Every structure is written in C-alpha cells, then in structure tokens.
C-alpha cells in the first residue's frame, strides 16, 4: 500500500451464508481518482461498496481509509467516507433540511458548523430550494440529489456511490451525472454501475468485477490498451482459415463477417490483410486499427466473449 493512498483494501471477502459474495478484493485509491466499479447485476459491486462503507463487516481482509483501520478505528475512518447506497437512505418523514442536519449530526459536526455544512451541501447539489420539502414528496431524481448532499455534508475525502443513476429518467440521469462530475473535482470517488457508458463518462479508472472478484483494474483511457486490426468482408473466410493464413495469429470473430486480429499499430498488418483479401476475393469492406474499447475489455474480462470465437 502506498502511503499516499486514501483507501487501501486488501484481501476482502464476504459470504452471504453459503453463497460467496466477494473474495480476494484488493483495491487502492489515491486522492482525486474517480474509479468506476463495473460489473453485471449480482457481480458483487454493492457488496464491495458496503464493505468499504463499513455497513458490512468483511469475513476476511483489511480496509484502511486515510490511514485509519476501518475495523479498529471505525469512527475515525468513517469520517472520511460519504456513502450513497443503491437505494438512498432517506427518511420520508423528514424535510430536506432536517435530513441533511441529521446527516451532519451523525457525522459529529458541531452545532456551530452544521448550518453552514448543510447550506454548502445544498449548494453543491443544486437543491437550495428544497429545504422545507418533505423527502417523501420528492421525485426520484431530486431524492437522489438529496442522497448525494447527505453523502457530502461533512466534506468527506472519499465518496462511495452505488448505482447513483439507477432508475432515473434521461434528463435526471444527465443532471445527476453532471453533478457527480462536479463533485469528483473535490472528492475521490468510487462509483458502481452496470452501464458501460456511465462508467466511461465519469471514471478515470475502471475496475471490472465478475463473480465476486476483481478481474480487471486499468485506467479508463488506457494508452497500453491492445490495438486490434478489424477486418470486415462481404465473403469472409472462416476464422480458422484466416488464422492459418496469418501464421497462427489469434483471430477473434467480432461480428458476422468481421474479425479482430491483435496487431501492431503500424500499417504492415493492414497491408498484409488487404493483400490476402484481394488474393482470396473476400470482398473487402473495411480495414482499420481500433483500440480496445471498454466494452471489449469488459467482455473479455468477464468471459462474455465465448472461447470458441477465438482461434
């Protein structure tokens, strides 16, 4: 663990009875990072966030937040965390101001600072006009904003956001995304989602979770991402035949009539493929170098690309 890490989790595991929730979770986060936790529903994203937020105790492993052990010094560690659960923890019978004041109280903010903290959180989440409204009467998008305000009221260094845009309509979704982007300039953020576009839009590092384990942890815009040569033909050969012609290169069927071959960024492989397409009359439609997309990375990391399509 680096001394500059805001969060360092090592060897986390949690079981739901006999069912494994998550295992072998190692995750570190530096200040200013926005990490996208990507995975299909049930992959273990929420469990990881609950463990990091301290609402669940891990069966194994250790979590340090800003240098404080979450199990041994939970009070100190939790002061650095703002947590928005998948279903925002809001009391319907309280007004927005009461709800934020409660959150500030629970975080131990002294009376003299609470009013300012509540006002700042409302300003940051654009809910200045909602102060007296009852939570029970708010729309889902507004409630989500209040949830976010509740999470940041004590100015935590780390924000844990579990599916913050789930169930929002397109305009609410856009507004909440913009809000999170703004918050990420002041806080380190871990945001979980099963939506690739969401993670792509907000995170600068992507952690892919599958089957309760982290299967990939790389920058969102990865300069080392593999380059593929994408070949599209009207009369395509079989993947096996193409692989044979390319001296056994790994050929992946990306879509009907479209193959992907890992290759160098220079033009040599493209020229070779163009010559082969011409010589075998494959009806060349397109030939291009493409970087590994997040979707591609996700599919590979989670095993969603079937093995038989790779030769």
């Amino acid at each position, binding site marked *: 663990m680096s001394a500059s890490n805001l969060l360092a989790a090592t060897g986390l595991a949690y079981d739901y009875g006999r069912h494994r929730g998550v295992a072998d979770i190692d995750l570190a986060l530096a200040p200013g990072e926005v990490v996208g936790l990507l995975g299909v529903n049930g992959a273990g994203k929420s469990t990881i966030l609950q463990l990091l937020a301290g*609402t669940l105790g891990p069966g194994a492993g250790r979590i340090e937040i800003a240098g404080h052990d979450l*199990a041994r010094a939970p009070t100190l560690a939790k002061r650095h965390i703002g947590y928005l659960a998948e279903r925002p923890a809001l*009391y319907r019978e309280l007004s927005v101001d009461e709800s934020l004041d409660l959150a500030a109280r629970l975080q131990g903010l002294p009376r003299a600072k609470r009013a300012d903290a509540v006002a700042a959180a409302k300003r940051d989440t654009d809910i200045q006009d909602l102060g007296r409204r009852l939570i029970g009467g708010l729309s889902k998008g507004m409630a989500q904003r209040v949830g976010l305000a509740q999470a940041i009221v004590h100015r935590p260094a780390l924000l844990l956001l579990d599916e913050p845009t789930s169930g929002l309509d397109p305009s609410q979704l856009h507004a909440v995304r913009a809000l999170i982007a703004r918050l990420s300039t002041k806080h380190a953020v871990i945001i979980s989602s099963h939506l690739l576009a969401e993670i792509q839009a907000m995170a600068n590092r992507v952690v892919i979770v599958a089957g309760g384990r982290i299967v990939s942890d790389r920058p969102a815009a990865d300069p080392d991402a593999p380059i593929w040569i994408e070949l599209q033909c009207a009369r395509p050969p079989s993947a096996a035949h193409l692989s044979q012609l390319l001296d056994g290169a790994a050929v992946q069927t990306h879509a009907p009539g479209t193959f992907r071959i890992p290759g160098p960024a220079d033009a040599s492989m493209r020229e070779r493929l163009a010559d082969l397409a011409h010589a075998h009359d494959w009806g060349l439609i397109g030939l291009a170098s493409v970087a590994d997309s997040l979707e591609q990375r996700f599919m590979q990391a989670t095993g969603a690309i079937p093995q038989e399509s790779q030769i």
Partner: protein
Amino acid sequence: MTGLAGVWRLETRRLFVSPLSWMLAAMTQLMGGLLLVMTLTDIQNNPQSLAETGGVTVYAVGGLMRFITLVLVLVVPLLTMRCIAEERKQGTWSALMASPVTSSALVLGKFAGVMGPLTLIWALVAAMPLVLATATPLDMGILAAGLIGLWLITACFAALGLLASTLTREPSLAAAISLTAILLAWLAYAVSSVDWQPTVLGATLDPAAVIRGISPIGHLDRLLRGLIALSDLVYFAAFVAACLALAVLRLDAERR
C-alpha cells in the same frame, strides 16, 4: 454524544409523526379508561368489596396498572419493531451504519427515542388515577410505587423489543419475537405460583422462587402492591442494561 442525540431526535421524530404511535396511545387510554369505569361501577355497586381488597388504591389503581401492563405486552413490540428492523427493510439503516456513530450510541439513542412515546402513554395512564384523586383520597405511596413499576416494566419491554428488532429485517418478525419473549416471562411468573417443591438429593428445592426472581412480572408485582425494594429497582436496571448490551453486541457483529 452528537451522534447519540441525533439518533434520539430521529427516533423521537419518526415515532411521533407515525399514526401508529398515536393510535396505540389512544387504544391504551381507551382500554385503561374502560377498565377504570368498570372497576368504579363495581365499587359503587358493591362498596363492601373495597374492604376485602385493600382499599380503592389497591383495587382500582393496582388493577388498572396490571391491566395496562397486559396492554403494553402488545403495544411495546409494535413500537419497537420499527426501531431497527423497519429501518433495515426500508433501506434507511445504511445511513446509520455507515456513519461514525458507535453501536452503543445507536442502541441508546433508539432506546431513548422509543421511550418518548411510551412515557407519554405512561403519563396519560398516570393521569387517570390522579383524576380519581380529586374525588376520593388515594394512597399516594401505593400510587407512586405502581407508577414507578409501570414505567420500569415498560422500559424492560422496550429494551427486549429493541433487542428483537436487531435480530431481523422483518418488522413483523421482530414484533413476534418480542411478544413471545414477553409472554414467556409472563408465563414463567404464572407458573411460579404453582406450589411445587421437589426434593433432589435430600434437598428441598423451590423453583417457583427462582422463576419469580427471573421474571420481570414478579418484580413488578411487589411494586404494584406499594413495596419499593432496591433489589427490584436493581433487577429492572440490570434487565434493561443486559438487553441493550446484547443489542450492541449484535450490531457490532454485523459491522465487524
């Protein structure tokens, strides 16, 4: 301390804006009022019964307190089930669990919060014999001991209900658990009146005395008869403390 106060305020607010709390308070008042009217009617019709039962305070007020204790067996679990189990079910519990508030502060705040409406119910019940005092002299010692006993047994039921609420995320199940536990305590007290003193290895045992000592109802009975003993007060304090300590341990186990 700020956290404990926050939880207490939250719980008080939640319970006082809940129609259920007011309905339960009204129901308790109605039941108590009906019983008191029936008792007074009985006294009016059979004044000689007062001499046999120890006077109006013991007969009418003591009877009222015993009856209200029985009503509380139903009322308290319905209020305490909301404390934690309902929060878990509604998803609001994560806000408290993710906060730096300790489990002890959570439990104490919740307990103090639920005792608010229960103390209101107790105060309304206390008003009934006090109204009676304007018409007839009452033994204030017996009345005070009875009211202390009623408040203490309410606190015991509330602590037990809070413990049950930590065990599940289903409010109805939490209510069923605490109701069963309280009824078992009552049953134990009823069983203790059976005259059974078995001899084991030459020694005569008195299981009834042991059961009476364990059940909170036995300790309440002495207070309702006007006897304030330090041992009973210590018992109630220990009972409440034990239930709350177990609730804290349960929450700690969940968090760690």
